[in-house]
C-alpha cells in the first residue's frame, strides 16, 4: 500500500514544460491558394501553424482585380450593367438590380410597380441560386459531397429559367437604368412556381442530409464563432451578420422595391458559428420561396420600365422601329447614355452575400464621375485574420465555406 512513486506530479509538469519549450520555434508557414479548391476562387491565405493549430492567418487578395471602378468612369451607366454580372457572379441578377437602383436613386426615378415586382423576383431567385450553391459547397468543404449534387441539380433548373427570362444563363445583364431589358415571357411565372414547388422537397432532403448529420455538426458547431460585436465591428452584412445575432436585413429595415408589402421572416442566429450560418442560409431559401409565391400572386399589370423617363430608358425595339420620337430617344440614350443629374447617392441592396452597395457620384450626363462598389465579400474576408487563429488547419475549409464569399466582388 505504501508504495512510493518515483515521479511526482511536480516533475511531470516541469518535464511537460521543458518539452513545450523544445517544441517552440517549430512553427510552419503554410501557403493556401491562390488557386486551391477550398478558396472558392483566387483567395490566398498565408497561415502560420504550430502543429495543427493556426497561429496566424493573413488573407492576400487582389488576384481577380479588374479595375471595375476605373472602367465604370469611362462608360455609360447601361454599358456598366454587364460588369455588375461579374461582381458576385453567383447572383448576377441581384447585382444588376442593385446597380440600377443606385443610379435611379440618384436620378430620383421611381420604376413602375410591375418592374419592381419583376426585380423582386430576380433578387429572390438569385438568392435561392446563390444560397443553394453556398450550402452545396459548404457541405462539400465539410466532407458531405452528396448535398452539392442536389443543390446543383436545382440550380440547373434555375439557370434554365434565367435563360428564358434574360437570354443568358450566367451573365444575365437584365436591368437597364429605369427598367428591365424585356418583360417576363409568356408562361414563365408558371414555370417559376413549378420550380419553387420542386425546390422545397430538395431543401428538406438537404436538411436530412446535413442538419443532424453527426460529422457535419461536429465539424461546424462551435467552429468559426463570430461574436455580435466582432460582426458589427468588421462590417459584416447579410447572412454572416445575422448568424451572429444582429437582426439587420435591409429588405425589412430599409425597404426597397416594395419589400414592405411582402410577408416574410428574417432568420437570426444565436451563436454565430459555421453551423448557424448554414442553418440561416437554408432558412433564407425558404423565406425567398415564400416571397416569390406572394410576388407571383400579386404581380401587377403595367409597364416594365419607367415610360416617362425619356432621357434615361431606351424604349423597346418595336417602338424604336415604328416611332420617330422613340428612335431619336433610343439614339440619344445609346450614344450619350442615360442622363443622370449631378449629385451623389449611395444605395445598398440586401444581396445573397450581404449588402452590395454602389456609391455613384455624377457631374451630370451619361457617365459616372466616380463609382464605388462596396462588395460584402471584401468585408467578410477582412475578419479572417482575427477569426481563423486558434483553429485547427482542417477548420479553414469549413470557415471559408461558411462565410460564402465570392472573389469577383471582393477584388472587383
Amino acid at each position, binding site marked *: 500500500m505504501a508504495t512510493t512513486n518515483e515521479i511526482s506530479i511536480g516533475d511531470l509538469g516541469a518535464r511537460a514544460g521543458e518539452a513545450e519549450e523544445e517544441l517552440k520555434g517549430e512553427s510552419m508557414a503554410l501557403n493556401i491558394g491562390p488557386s486551391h479548391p477550398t478558396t472558392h476562387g483566387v483567395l490566398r491565405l498565408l497561415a502560420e501553424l504550430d502543429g495543427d493549430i493556426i497561429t496566424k492567418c493573413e488573407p492576400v487578395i487582389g488576384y481577380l482585380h479588374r479595375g471595375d471602378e*476605373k*472602367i465604370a468612369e469611362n462608360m455609360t451607366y447601361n454599358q456598366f450593367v454587364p460588369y455588375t454580372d461579374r461582381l458576385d457572379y453567383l447572383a448576377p441578377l441581384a447585382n444588376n438590380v442593385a446597380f440600377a437602383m443606385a443610379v435611379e436613386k440618384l436620378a430620383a426615378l421611381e420604376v413602375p410597380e410591375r418592374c419592381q415586382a419583376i426585380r423582386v423576383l430576380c433578387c429572390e431567385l438569385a438568392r435561392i441560386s446563390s444560397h443553394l450553391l453556398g450550402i452545396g459547397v459548404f457541405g462539400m468543404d465539410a466532407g458531405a459531397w452528396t448535398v452539392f449534387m442536389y443543390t446543383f441539380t436545382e440550380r440547373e433548373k434555375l439557370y434554365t429559367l434565367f435563360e428564358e427570362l434574360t437570354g443568358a444563363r450566367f451573365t444575365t445583364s437584365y436591368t437597364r437604368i429605369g427598367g428591365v431589358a424585356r418583360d417576363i415571357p409568356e408562361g414563365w411565372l408558371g414555370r417559376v412556381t413549378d420550380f419553387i414547388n420542386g425546390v422545397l422537397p430538395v431543401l428538406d432532403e438537404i436538411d436530412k442530409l446535413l442538419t443532424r448529420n453527426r460529422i457535419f455538426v461536429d465539424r461546424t458547431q462551435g467552429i468559426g464563432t463570430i461574436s455580435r460585436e466582432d460582426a*458589427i465591428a468588421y*462590417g459584416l452584412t447579410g447572412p454572416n451578420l445575422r448568424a451572429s445575432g*444582429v437582426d*439587420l436585413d435591409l429588405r425589412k429595415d430599409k425597404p426597397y422595391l416594395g419589400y414592405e408589402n411582402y410577408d416574410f421572416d428574417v432568420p437570426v442566429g444565436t451563436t454565430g458559428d459555421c453551423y448557424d450560418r448554414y442553418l440561416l442560409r437554408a432558412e433564407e431559401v425558404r423565406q425567398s420561396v415564400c416571397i416569390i409565391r406572394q410576388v407571383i400572386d400579386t404581380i401587377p399589370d403595367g409597364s416594365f420600365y419607367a415610360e416617362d423617363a425619356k432621357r434615361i430608358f431606351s424604349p423597346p425595339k418595336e417602338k424604336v422601329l415604328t416611332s420617330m420620337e422613340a428612335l431619336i430617344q433610343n439614339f440619344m440614350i445609346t450614344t450619350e447614355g442615360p442622363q443622370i443629374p449631378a*449629385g451623389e*447617392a449611395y*444605395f445598398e441592396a440586401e444581396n445573397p452575400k450581404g449588402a452590395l452597395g454602389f456609391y455613384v457620384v455624377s457631374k451630370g450626363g451619361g457617365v459616372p464621375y466616380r463609382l464605388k462598389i462596396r462588395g460584402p465579400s471584401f468585408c467578410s474576408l477582412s475578419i479572417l485574420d482575427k477569426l481563423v487563429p486558434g483553429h485547427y488547419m482542417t477548420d479553414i475549409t469549413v470557415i471559408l465555406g461558411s462565410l460564402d464569399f465570392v472573389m469577383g466582388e471582393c477584388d472587383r
Partner: protein
Amino acid sequence: MSQADFASLKERFAYLTERDSADHLSVNCPAKHLLEFCTSLRDELGYDLLLDVTAIDWDVQTSPRFTGIYHILSTTHHNYIRIASDCLEDAQPSLPSLAGIFPAANWHERETYDMMGIRYEGHPDLKRILMWEDYPYHPLRKEFPLAGIEVPFPAADVAESANAKVLPAPMMGGPFVSPSGGTMREIEPQAKDESWTEKEEQH
C-alpha cells in the same frame, strides 16, 4: 439613440457643415475632427456599422483634390450617415485612420490608399491590397489612363528570364467613351486608341 438630424448634430459638433445629398443625412467634417466625430457617432448615436470607406478625386487642377467618403449605418435605428472629409494636402493627401474605432476600416483604407494614394495616419498596416506591393501608381486617380501604364513585372526573376512586362491594355474597339460634356462628336462612345484596325491585326 434616436435618429440624428443635421440640426441636432450641428448643435453638438459645431465644425460640421451640411452636404448636398440625394438620399440620406450627409455631413462635411474637417479631417482634424474626423476621429472624434466618428467615435461619438459610434458610442453615443448608435452609428456602429461602418459600411464603406472611399475617396473621390476631383481632378488634377482642383483643390482640395481628394475627398474621403465614409458611409455608416446604425444596426439599432437603421439610418445611414455619409461623412465627407477633404484631404488638406493635394500632392500628398492624408486623413486620420478609423481602423482604431472600426476594424472594418482597416481593409477599406488599404484599398483607398492603393487606388487613390491617400495616406491614413495611424493605420496599423498601410500597404497595398489589390495591386501588388511594388506597383508605382494609384490607378483610380484621374490622371491615370484607363489602359494602364507599362511597369516592370512583379516577380523580378520571372521578368528577367522571360523578359516579361506589364503592358497597357490594347484599347481597340471597346465600349469605352470619353467623359461627358463637349460636342456630340466628343461624347459619343468611341475607342480611345483609334490606330487599331482589323487589317493591321491580321498581320
